[in-house]
């Protein structure tokens, strides 16, 4: 036996997963509360005790960890045009597992500077202009930044013509030059920035956040948790040498405060008669819905779905729903009992969280009647052919109605222009292993993939529904 320990320091829970890389199987998982305010090692010790109670003492050959504790990797980005370089910067940061607190476009103002100081991000990503294109905006924004006292690293990944000058303007600060996120019009180049973000995360941020106290316990690399999940999903879709993947997929992580969506698919138009509009999309795309979550962001779900649908799905009266929502406001840690009204409400909330978040992630198809007849214009990713939906998050793992909730990720006749999967197999991450498998994939991709294929439980097969 050769056990390896994988740790995810989450914002609420520290989750541990033990894997035997010799036998290629999961040994066990456990969790405990994250203890960021005292010593992060405490929560880890507790989780390990629980784990070892199940598995017996283990002598680990390696320990690898990822983290989203202490607010995660907090970033601000600034670009030029909202739909172009500003969006490219946003995409690059999300793809690196960051929590993007603010996206500026065009010129930064004095009010924006106040906000930047208040947020005090872990990294600031400064972009704008294609190579040889606009320099005015990025230079202005560099000067504005230089006028305030700040202490975070800045990545410059805009028009290369302006890069060195931006560096000089920001002299005295930690500055990293990187390739342009959009070197040519309509060409996305986000991988170099993703890499750079991860490098900075490793070298600097884990220390700043007090995570290094636990580092003597950990032999391997650290990355933000969403970045680990992203790797796991990429591997699961694409496969690796010696083990095939399961094909194009989307993954949904419904959390307490936010909902993350990952899609692993090309998503470009399938036929020549469709015109594509907007920025090209990355194969591996992550979006985060900050207003969609099961406890801290329930009101965002209700706003998006409408109280009517929540009542209909939960089969509760509006008065009862409102009463329960108030209760949730006061008690964010409530977990529903089986058969309770809260369980019914959670069913409706989770269903609508998934529907809203996937609809926002997916592209749309617009029909335009031209004089010649119907023409189609696609913007964003076409997920209609995606055949696998992976779901995770407490509200989906605990319930027995996972498949029913997850089917809300799929296309619906009520929203024919939304390019969501038409029919898909649904799999649930009941043991919470996605981040752990992302970490493991760095060293033992084949084993990580095999474990995922085995452990992600099938939970039905769904097609378009009528609701």
């Amino acid at each position: 036996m050769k056990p390896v320990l994988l740790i995810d320091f989450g914002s609420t829970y520290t989750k541990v997963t033990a894997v035997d890389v010799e036998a290629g199987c999961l040994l066990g998982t456990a969790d405990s509360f994250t203890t960021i305010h005292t010593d992060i090692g405490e929560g880890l010790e507790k989780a390990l005790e629980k784990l070892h109670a199940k598995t017996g003492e283990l002598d680990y050959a390696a320990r690898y960890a990822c983290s989203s504790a202490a607010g995660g990797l907090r970033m601000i980005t600034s670009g030029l045009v909202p739909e172009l370089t500003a969006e490219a910067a946003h995409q690059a940061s999300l793809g690196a597992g960051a929590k993007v607190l603010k996206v500026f476009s065009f010129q930064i103002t004095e009010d924006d500077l106040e906000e930047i100081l208040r947020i005090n991000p872990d990294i600031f990503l400064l972009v704008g202009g294609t190579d040889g294109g606009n320099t005015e905006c990025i230079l202005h924004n560099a000067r504005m930044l230089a006028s305030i006292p700040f202490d975070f690293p800045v990545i410059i990944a805009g028009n290369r013509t302006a890069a060195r000058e931006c560096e000089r303007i920001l002299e005295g600060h930690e500055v990293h030059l990187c390739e342009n996120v959009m070197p040519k019009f309509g060409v996305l180049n986000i991988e170099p920035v993703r890499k750079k973000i991860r490098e900075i995360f490793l070298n600097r941020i884990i220390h700043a956040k007090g995570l290094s106290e636990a580092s003597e316990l950990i032999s391997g690399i650290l990355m933000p948790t969403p970045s680990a999940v992203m790797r796991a999903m990429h591997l699961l879709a694409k496969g690796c040498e010696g083990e095939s993947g399961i094909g194009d997929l989307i993954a949904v992580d419904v959390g307490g405060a936010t909902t993350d969506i990952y899609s692993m698919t090309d998503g470009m138009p399938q036929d020549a008669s469709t015109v594509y509009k907007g920025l090209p999309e990355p194969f591996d795309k992550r979006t985060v819905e900050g207003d969609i979550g099961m406890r801290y962001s329930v009101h965002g779900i209700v706003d998006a779905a409408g109280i009517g649908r929540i009542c209909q799905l939960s089969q509760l009266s509006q008065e009862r729903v409102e009463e329960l929502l108030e209760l949730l406001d006061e008690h964010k840690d409530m977990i529903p009992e089986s058969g309770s009204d809260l369980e019914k409400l959670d069913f409706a909330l989770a269903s609508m969280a998934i529907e809203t978040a996937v609809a926002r992630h997916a592209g749309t198809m617009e029909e335009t009647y031209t004089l010649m007849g119907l023409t189609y214009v696609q913007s964003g990713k076409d997920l209609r052919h995606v055949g696998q939906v992976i779901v995770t998050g407490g509200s989906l793992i605990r319930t027995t109605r996972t498949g029913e909730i997850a089917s809300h990720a799929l296309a619906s006749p009520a929203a024919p222009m939304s390019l969501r999967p038409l029919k898909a197999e649904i799999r649930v991450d009941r043991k919470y292993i996605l981040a752990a498998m992302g970490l493991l994939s760095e060293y033992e991709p084949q084993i990580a993939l095999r474990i995922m294929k085995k452990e992600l439980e099938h939970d039905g097969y769904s097609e378009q529904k009528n609701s």
Partner: protein
Amino acid sequence: MKKKVLVIGVIGADVHAVGNRILYHAFTEAGFEVINLGVMVSQEEYIAAAIESAADAIVISSLYGQGELDCRGMREKCDEAGLKGIPLVVGGNIVIGKQKFEDVEKRFKDMGFDRAFPPGTLPETTIEALRELLHMEEEA
């Protein structure tokens, strides 16, 4: 010398793609850097592309006859977006049927276009006009 940057595309719901491709190659061949937005391009798309790439001119094609409607407000939007004074040119079959081109040209100039070209304008003529408009002769 830095290449002049052109943003080109066919405006509105127009799907005539052949002329657009010909112009892309002709302009590139003539030494321009060309950002081709293809067919069915909205005013906003031209403007966004021109901002990021610091374009020297926007070249609009319209073939299906609705050019006048599609081009309305383009100059004002450019002004609004900070592209003050960017040269705007338009050509193809910009209006329906046979109309006196002087009248058509005047209407487009009143809308803020620098140049409007009649049907059948050859790529060479177009390139020459762009060189003149962008004062490239003097610089070369």
